[in-house]
């Protein structure tokens, strides 16, 4: 009987030697997180990715699976981020007529706003004594995750810290756009959508689709252009 117990306790570690446990846990947490999200009424401040990640961390901690073993196994999933980044080019192409219709404000705003999104974060972090590794993790905070992972790796930052920053940025950008739209005031849905996508990447884009389809299209556009622009600009600037 006690032998069975010992074997039972060793079970997570033994299974963790193959990638299948990591894949199963990640998939499971993804679906449970999405289910919980719709059960609690789809709140703006708690996107499903946060729910799923908290669940997953809890399960990994309880099973006492080594985090690095998990990460190793999960590479079977994360390797798909490369093709997924390429896939972002398709909606970008499909929205090309929106870009043409509003090219002037977009061309003026995008380079300045996307640069400032990174500059504000880096300058504030630097003034408060953050290390270069932390600054490199904060710089791509407004960029959509698959692109931001590539940027952070190029800059030598910490991917986990960057992902945390990305999530918080997405949530607060959504709240700030709602707040500032009322204060300024801005009512043009195209502008609101663009600001949501530019600053709040995928989380902001999800919010924009709740406002209207036009806002959603402009958010995808803002997200895609910010991603490309920042990915091309940041590594070159950081080198200097």
């Amino acid at each position, binding site marked *: 009987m006690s032998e069975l117990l010992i074997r039972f306790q060793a079970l997570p570690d033994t299974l963790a030697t193959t990638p299948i446990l990591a894949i199963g846990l990640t998939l499971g947490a993804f679906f449970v997180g999405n289910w919980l999200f719709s059960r609690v009424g789809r709140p703006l401040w708690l996107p499903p990715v946060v729910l799923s990640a908290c669940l997953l961390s809890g399960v990994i901690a309880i099973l006492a699976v080594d985090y690095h073993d998990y990460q190793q196994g999960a590479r079977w999933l994360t390797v798909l981020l490369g093709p997924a980044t*390429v896939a*972002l080019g398709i909606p970008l192409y499909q929205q090309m007529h929106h870009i043409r219709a509003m090219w002037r404000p977009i061309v003026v705003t995008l380079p300045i706003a996307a640069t400032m999104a990174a500059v504000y974060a880096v300058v504030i972090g630097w003034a408060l004594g953050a290390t270069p590794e932390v600054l490199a993790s904060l710089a791509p905070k407004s960029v959509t995750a698959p692109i931001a992972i590539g940027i952070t790796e190029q800059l030598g930052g910490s991917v986990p*810290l960057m992902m945390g920053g990305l999530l918080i940025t997405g949530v607060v950008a959504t709240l700030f756009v709602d707040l500032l739209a009322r204060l300024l005031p801005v009512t043009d849905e195209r502008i609101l959508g663009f600001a949501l996508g530019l600053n709040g990447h995928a989380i902001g884009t999800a919010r924009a689709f709740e406002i209207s389809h036009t806002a959603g299209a402009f958010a995808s556009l803002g997200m895609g252009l910010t991603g490309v622009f920042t990915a091309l600009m940041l590594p070159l600037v950081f080198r200097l």
Partner: protein
Amino acid sequence: MSMLRGFLVLVLFFILGESVRLLLALPVSGGVLGMVVITFTLMLKGSVSDDLALASQGLISVLVLLIMPGVVGVFFTADQFSGQWLAVAAALLVGTFLSVLTTLVLMKLVTTRGVSDRE
């Protein structure tokens, strides 16, 4: 089957992007290069095949699943950055507030200058 065909196109463009990055020693990730190249290819071609649209929709809809392993790391590497939480929190909160403000004000200025103000 058709989704896999689209997936193959995405993988090929990714490999192309990675190759360009490695050959030219660019500091930009292969995925981004692949995305830029595929966007321009589609613009030249003028249409996107159903296979490719299907595969990209599929991958984009599970993006959250693909980034979760990275997100989970926050909880396991957090103590590495102890003592810098104030800097991180301020950079994220104040920085995002300022960048949202910048975007909205700029867009508002540029769009209302071109078109005559309706109000």
